[in-house]
C-alpha cells in the first residue's frame, strides 16, 4: 500500500466526493420558506408604497408613516403638522421614508443570514455546496456596505418612536378600535426588534472591555443581550405585524373592513 506523507500531493487533497451534500434531512426547507416569506413581503411592500389609502382617522398605515408630503398627506396624518416636502412632491409619501426601515432590515445581521441562504444560496444550508465559483463575502464592494447597519439602526429608533406615537394617537382617538390595538402590538414588536439589534447591543456596552467600570451600561447590555437572543424571532414577528397592521389600516381606509369596532 502507498504510504502518504505530508509532502505527497495526494495528502493535500480533500476527499473527492462528487455529491454536493450528503445530508439526508430536508435542508432545502429553510431557504425555500425564507424565499417565499421574503418575496411575499417585498411584493406587499411594493404594492403598499403605491397604494393611496394609507390614512383613515385615527389610523395611520405604518408603511407610510411619517407622512412628510404636503400634497398627499391629510393635515391629520402629519406628524405634529410637520410636512417639509411641498406641493411639488406628488409621488407616494411612503417612498420618502421606506428606505430607512428597509435599509435597517436589509443590513440586519439576521436578515443577512436569511437572504444569503434563501436568495443568494451562499450557502443554501450548512454543509451544502454553494453554486458560486468565487466568493469574497463582505470584504469588498458592494457587500462591504453592510457595515453601515448602525446608521440604519439610529434611523430605526426614530421610526419606532413615530410608530409608537401613531399608536398612542389611535388610542386617544379610538380606544375601543381593533385597529388601535393592532397598531399598539405592531409598535411594541417593531421597537423590540429594533432594541434587539446587534448594533444596539454593541453600542450599549458591547464595545467596552471593562464592564465593571460601567455598571449602568452593563445592565443595559444584559437586557439587550436577552432580547438579542430572540432577534430572529422578533425580526420575523415584527415583519408580520407591520405587514398585518399596514394591510388592516388600508382595508379600513378603503371601506372593505367596516364593522363598528374596526
Amino acid at each position: 500500500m502507498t504510504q502518504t506523507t505530508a509532502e505527497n500531493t495526494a495528502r493535500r487533497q480533500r476527499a473527492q466526493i462528487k455529491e454536493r451534500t450528503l445530508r439526508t434531512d430536508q435542508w432545502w426547507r429553510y431557504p425555500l420558506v425564507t424565499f417565499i416569506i421574503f418575496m411575499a413581503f417585498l411584493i406587499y411592500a411594493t404594492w403598499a408604497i403605491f397604494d393611496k389609502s394609507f390614512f383613515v382617522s385615527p389610523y395611520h398605515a405604518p408603511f407610510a408613516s411619517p407622512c412628510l408630503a404636503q400634497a398627499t398627506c391629510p393635515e391629520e396624518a402629519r406628524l405634529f403638522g410637520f410636512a417639509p416636502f411641498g406641493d411639488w412632491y406628488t409621488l407616494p409619501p411612503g417612498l420618502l421614508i421606506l428606505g430607512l426601515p428597509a435599509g435597517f432590515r436589509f443590513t440586519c445581521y439576521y436578515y443577512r443570514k436569511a437572504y444569503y441562504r434563501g436568495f443568494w444560496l451562499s450557502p443554501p444550508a450548512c454543509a451544502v455546496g454553494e453554486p458560486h465559483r468565487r466568493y469574497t463575502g463582505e470584504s469588498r464592494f458592494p457587500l462591504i456596505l453592510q457595515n453601515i447597519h448602525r446608521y440604519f439602526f439610529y434611523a430605526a429608533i426614530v421610526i419606532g418612536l413615530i410608530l409608537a406615537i401613531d399608536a398612542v394617537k389611535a388610542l386617544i382617538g379610538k380606544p375601543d378600535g381593533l385597529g388601535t390595538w393592532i397598531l399598539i402590538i405592531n409598535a411594541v414588536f417593531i421597537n423590540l426588534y429594533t432594541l434587539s439589534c446587534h448594533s444596539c447591543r454593541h453600542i450599549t456596552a458591547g464595545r467596552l472591555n471593562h464592564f465593571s467600570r460601567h455598571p449602568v451600561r452593563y445592565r443595559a447590555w444584559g437586557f439587550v443581550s436577552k432580547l438579542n437572543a430572540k432577534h430572529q424571532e422578533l425580526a420575523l414577528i415584527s415583519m408580520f405585524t407591520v405587514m398585518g397592521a399596514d394591510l388592516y389600516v388600508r382595508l379600513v381606509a378603503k371601506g372593505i373592513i367596516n364593522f363598528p369596532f374596526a
Partner: protein
Amino acid sequence: MSYKAKFRVWRGEGGEGRLEDFTVEVNDGEVVLDIIHRLQATQAPDLAVRWNCKAGKCGSCSMEINGKPRLGCMTRMSTFAEDETITVTPMRAFPVIKDLVTDVSFNYQKAREIPSFTPPSDVKPGEYRMQQIDVERSQEFRKCIECFMCNNVCHVIRDHEENKPAFAGPRFLMRIAELDMHPYDVADRKDAAQEEHGLGYCNITKCCTEVCPEHIKITDNALIPMKERVVDRRYDPLVWLGNKIFRRSDAKR
C-alpha cells in the same frame, strides 16, 4: 436490543477513495464512533479514525455523518431509524490522510498567525486585577475543544479552497474576539481581524454556531461583536471623532 445497521464509510488515502458499504451490529446506547470501532474490530481492520476521549471533550473524532459535521462520539445511534443507511465521511474542508482522518494542520497554521495575549507593558504578571463580569464573555470562547467543525462547515473555505490563505475561519476569528474583549489585552486586533484574518469574508450565515458541539454562540457573541468593533474603527466616523475629542483609546474602555 440489537439490530443490523447499514453503513457507508469513506475509504481511501489522500483525496481518492470511495464509499464502502457495511452491515454492522448496533446495540442499545451506542454512538457512531462505537460502530466505527466495531467495523475496525470485525470487518475493516485498517479503517483509520482519529479518536481519543469518547466524551465529547477532546475534539478528535470530528467527521461528517449523513453529510453533517458531528462528533462521532456524541452522535447517538438512537437518533437514526433502524432501516436508515448512515453515511460517514471525513471532514470535507481538509485534506484526507486516510479514511476518516484528515490533516487539520491548516488550523494550527492559522492559530500561529494570531499574536498571543498582549498585556500593557506597565502591568507586571501578578498585578492583573479584573472582575468576573469583565472576563465572562471571553470565557465562553474558552469552552472550545478545537474539533474544527466550525472551520470545516464554513462555506468560505469549504466551498472555496482559494480563500484559505486569507481567512482564519470562525474558530480563530473567535480567538481574536476573545483577546480583543480581554480587559488587559492592548494589541491591535481590529484592523488585523479585517485585513489579515479575513473577518469581512464572514457573511454570518451561522453554520459555525449550528455545528458547535460546545454550543458556543460563535456568530452572535464573537463574530458579530468583532464586526461591530471593526465598524467602530474603520467605518464609523462618529466613533472616530468621539475618540479624538475625548482622547479615548480602546485599552481605556
